């Protein structure tokens, strides 16, 4: 095999000017490549039509005291529970400082009887049980996730199990007494 050729006479001035050009060109190429990669990565984020499906209107007039319904918003279940007086009482008598993700019940609802939250466990994304009458509701009378055993209370706050956070509250607004717009 031929030895690698000595590429340039290494007199100081010329070599350093060449080095400068090589580093400059390489840096520019690196920045250019990074810029070119951007649209590829960005195309993987939610598209405009996916973002456009971002709100749902729900008629809640038929949901009686103590009942709950599940609606779909952005492909995820949203739990809407018409809470009883006892539910609200139980949620508000808790010492907030003791909670893993401290939040008062007042901060989690707009109108006390209506608890509206995303029904996706904050551990690894399973759907907690507790919406139907016969479901297990966990140790705190709210929801129970069957995948890895997280317990949520009547305000949807994490009380026991591996989940780190309370069930999240979606943005929503009451349009009138019987209609709520989620998203």
């Amino acid at each position, binding site marked *: 095999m031929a030895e690698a050729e000595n590429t340039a006479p290494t007199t100081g001035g010329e070599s350093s000017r060449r080095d400068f050009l090589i580093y400059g060109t390489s840096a520019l190429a690196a920045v250019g490549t990074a810029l070119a990669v951007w649209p590829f*990565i960005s195309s*993987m*984020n*939610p*598209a405009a039509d*996916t973002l456009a499906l971002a709100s749902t209107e729900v008629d809640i007039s038929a949901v009686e005291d103590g009942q709950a319904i*599940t609606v*779909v918003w*952005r*492909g*995820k*279940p949203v739990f809407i529970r018409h809470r009883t007086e006892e539910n609200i009482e139980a949620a508000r008598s808790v010492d907030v400082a003791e909670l893993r993700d401290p939040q008062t019940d007042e901060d989690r609802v707009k109108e006390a009887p209506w608890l509206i939250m995303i029904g*996706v466990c904050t*551990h*690894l*994304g*399973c*759907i907690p049980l507790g919406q139907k009458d016969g479901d297990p509701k966990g140790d705190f009378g709210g929801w129970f996730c*069957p*995948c*890895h*055993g997280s317990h949520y209370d009547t305000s949807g706050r994490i009380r026991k199990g*591996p*989940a*780190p956070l309370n069930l999240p509250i979606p943005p929503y607004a009451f349009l009138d007494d019987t209609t709520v717009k989620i998203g």
Partner: protein
Amino acid sequence: MYTPPTWNNKAVKWFDDRLPIVTLMHKELIVYPAPKNLNYWWNFGSLAGIALVIMVATGIFLAMNYTAHVDYAFNSVERIMRDVNYGWLLRYIHMNGASMFFIVVYIHVFRGLYYGSYKAPREVLWWLGIVIMLLMMASAFMGYVLPWGQMSFWGATVITNLFSAFPVVGESIVTLLWGGFSVANPTLNRFFALHYLFPMILFAVVFIHLWALHAKKSNNPLGIDAKGPNDFIPFHPYYTVKDAFGLGIFLMIFAYFVFFQPNFFGEPDNYIPANPMVTPPHIVPEWYFLPFYAILRSVPDKLGGVLAMFGAILILFILPWLDTSKVRSATFRPIFKWFFWLFLADCFVLGYIGAQGAEEPYVTIGQVATVYYFLHLLVIVPLVGWFEKPRPLPESISAPVTTKA
């Protein structure tokens, strides 16, 4: 030294002169020198390569009848099973092929662990093997999502949610993976695209793996360097025939599952179409992920669990330096040998625990097994290499048979 042959056939000579691929194949597949004492555990590398070819071949033909859309995916798979000519056969080979591929690769990995194949000068070869294993895992995970059954959907949900454990960027990464706000059609589409791409990358890395292998040649059961022509035999016909025999046995076992127990490795829940509103009561990953799933669940902290799970594989990258012993083969390492079997047993325990619910006594057993997994690699392996007195090594590969007792 290798001297290329002179090709008598004029056409071959003409072609080889312009692209010396015939010479290359002659050098690397025919006269390629292999240690003469390789045992049957050395069959699993070539079996893994054949498993990859089988997966790619069946996968391409399945893709011709598959529809990557949430409304059609499940039914298109059922159509493959019922209506497409031999669709059931292609799909059952592909489904069981994934399990066969993992069995063969796991044996191949543990062969390397036992005989010290990861040690100098084969560290880069070992790294490439880990890269191959990671690519396999990613491909297998995404492939399992494609039939869009309940386990597909919820497996995808749980695994993609792992990334939400990372602080600050976690949620953005998950949205990026999903292409939406939950596992949905954009997710299925990209998983199909990537499931088709990854095996091609895998193929390329396998070739680099082989390149690294052929640079330093195979390790062998004695773990000593092969010295001189007396220790080698040509790959063909000696190992082509040995590999072919092993392949026959492998294909018989493979065919048994395809034809008699095609759903043995699967979950019945995956024959229920995906329902984003109902989580199945008992989510388990495919068997080949169970040990890692057990490690994930053993750590009570979400981020900690995720790091431990990925760490369990990534730690193998530094194994060549964690192992302080100069002796490769466990045959000559009286203490390490026992710890090797204990480590293997630990991996089986983790696999068993991964399949159980998150309750006692499984949680505690899983935690002990997880601690032992890391203890073995991070503490026991370095210490044993230090304190153990290895048995005397033979002079050469030929010595034990040629010297008189």
